[in-house]
């Protein structure tokens, strides 16, 4: 890096901007190109927001996600009234139970005479914040009465659980399953793709055929078979780990393909030959010289692999073969919306589809933008 810099200082033909580009690392170049891609940048911000939301899930939730009350099943989403007598005082109407004289069931309906004002940083159920400290503060609450009784921003499910709160915690689970799964796939992909690209020959052929075979098997039946074999007695955490392993066992092939392609392309580059001639060790060549120059490709491939992982987990859990209650994930929530009868009574259960679609779209746009930025000739 120092050689072109001194050259630039002596020859006035090279402008400062060009010098900046010449001296920039591959990652910097990618970042500069990526910034120009507005949709991708916006998607990136959205993804970051979702992950912040996932970290703060308990804080954003209103009621304990497992607190059930059969009497309050299928309460439709409550509307927030923003103004009270012309002043800005957001409130909801309390729910009042009335006995339906025909069915003799208690029916909850909003009672306009009983206003409950919304409060920021209110007290609610207590939880452990990131395992650091115990707290009972939540973003939203009510000035009086427990939120469990009156605040249902997205309605309740059959067991009377608050859909909004469950959605917050489900987002955390589903987004982290994707991350852990991708980390595992990345490890396998870089290892096998790297070996394949670096050594070539028979090893390469064997690994490539293996990838081709894996890709030609329909994945969902395979996942279903493997996931169904997890013992019923396993804890939520064990199932969570097992599911991510199952998903990434099949998901690594695309990453391996990208890594191998890059290795093959870079192997012939002059700077690699130069490093070899200078006597650098193989490991040093790989990690000091090759990896930095295709890191941006890997980042792009990862951000395209993540949504696929999230869809896989959601699908498996939706089928009842992935995470099981009491674990909460998008797929688990969508299970409640599986049949037309439930949807006819409680269409708001389908609201879970919205974050799923937004996150997956955002990841795809982000990944596309990154891929374009990573490849100067694309």
């Amino acid at each position, binding site marked *: 890096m120092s050689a072109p810099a001194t050259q630039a200082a002596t020859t006035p033909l090279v402008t400062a901007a060009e010098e900046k580009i010449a001296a920039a690392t591959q990652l910097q170049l990618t970042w500069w190109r990526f910034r120009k891609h507005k949709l991708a940048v916006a998607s990136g911000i959205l993804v970051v927001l979702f992950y912040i939301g996932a970290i703060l899930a308990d804080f954003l939730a209103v009621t304990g996600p497992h607190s059930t009350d059969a009497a309050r099943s299928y309460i439709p989403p409550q509307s927030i009234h923003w103004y009270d007598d012309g002043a800005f005082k957001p409130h909801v109407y309390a729910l009042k139970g009335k006995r339906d004289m025909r069915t003799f069931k208690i029916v909850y309906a909003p009672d306009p005479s009983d206003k409950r004002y919304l409060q920021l940083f209110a007290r609610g159920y207590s939880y452990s914040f990131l395992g650091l400290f115990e707290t009972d503060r939540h973003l939203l609450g009510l000035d009086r009465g427990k939120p469990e009784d009156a605040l249902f921003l997205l309605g309740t499910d059959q067991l009377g659980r608050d859909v909004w709160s469950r959605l917050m915690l489900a987002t955390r689970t589903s987004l982290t399953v994707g991350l852990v799964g991708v980390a595992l796939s990345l490890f396998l992909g870089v290892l096998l793709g790297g070996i394949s690209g670096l050594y070539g020959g028979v090893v390469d052929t064997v690994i490539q*055929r293996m990838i*081709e*075979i894996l*890709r*030609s*098997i*329909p*994945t*969902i*039946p*395979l996942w*279903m*078979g*493997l996931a*169904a*074999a997890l*013992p019923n007695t396993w804890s939520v955490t064990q199932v969570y780990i097992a599911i991510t392993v199952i998903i990434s066992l099949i998901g690594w092939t695309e990453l391996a393909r990208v890594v191998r392609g890059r290795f093959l392309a870079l192997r012939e580059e002059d700077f690699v030959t130069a490093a070899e001639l200078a006597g650098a060790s193989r490991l040093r060549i790989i990690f000091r010289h090759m990896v930095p120059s295709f890191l941006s490709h890997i980042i792009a491939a990862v951000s395209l692999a993540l*949504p696929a992982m999230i*869809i896989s987990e*959601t*699908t498996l859990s*939706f*089928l*009842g*073969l992935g995470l099981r209650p009491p674990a909460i994930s998008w797929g688990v929530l*969508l299970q409640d*919306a*599986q049949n*037309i009868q439930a*949807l*006819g009574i409680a*269409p708001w259960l*389908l609201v879970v*589809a919205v974050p*799923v*679609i937004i996150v*997956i*779209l955002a990841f*795809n*746009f982000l990944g596309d933008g990154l891929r374009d930025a990573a490849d100067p000739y694309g």
Partner: protein
Amino acid sequence: MVTYILQRLGLALVTIWAISVVSFVIIQLPPGDFVDTYITNLAASGSAVRAEEAQALREQYGLDKPIWVQYWKWISRVATGDFGMSMEWGRPVIEVIGDRLWLTIVISFAAILITWGIALPIGIYSAVRQYSVADYIFTFVGFVGLAVPNFLLALIIMYFGFKLFDLNIGGLFSAEYQIAPWSAGKVWDMMKHLPLPAMILALAGTAQLIRIMRANLLDELRRPYVTTARARGLPEWRVILKYPVRAALNPFASTIGYLLPFVVSGSIVVSLVLSLPTVGPLLLRSLVAQDMFLAGTIVLLLGILTVIGTFLSDLILMWIDPRIRSGMHG
């Protein structure tokens, strides 16, 4: 050319072998062997099995032998068409699966045809009218198709069908044909029900194909021969359809290999939501009930059929692409 076919055939056979191993593993995965399950099932229905009988059963199925012997026994029986008994149904697995396998194939095949039917014209249009409003709209719709998992799409469409048109969209046959034997009327009835599930399955794959077609065609359209054709006064549709589209089709055709496993996978989940009589719901049920011979057989047959489909698409590709025919890999 012969080398190419042999190579593909070899790979297909290895893949089928790999699938058979995976299916066998799935059959073996639940704790205990299936004689245990069988005995528990019989005990639940009131009849007891004596220890000698259990031992005889184990010997019959070779469960006392090492695992590879068991695999060999199983695969040799499978090769003769004997897939074992379904525990839950008490009938041979192949009878339980019955028509469902063919219906799965019909739906997957229809979905692929629709994917092509949609992606081809839209891909051409998007490339010819690059950056037009329609190009953006198609790109956006394609992305949505890519982003919405197809079971979710099925759920949403089912909900709106129910809400707006008071229509129950599920199923593949009307009530009167549900259990009727096959007839022209039943086939026609199926044809009427087929487009919706096939469309739902197709939408997910369409986005990628549109993008591939668009990118390929854009590359071709910039070539000098297109300008030449135009300069010689060929009508515009001929300039585009006769040469660049044909050249752009080759990479497009090769995508069928990945499309097929994708669509077969999707059909399983979509069938569950729309309660289609394919192997999807049967597979889920057998897995939940740990009816492992049934589950393993379904995984095996789906895998084998996908491999055969991919192999056939390779042959088609060879027929389309002269480079492969003449032994060059392009």
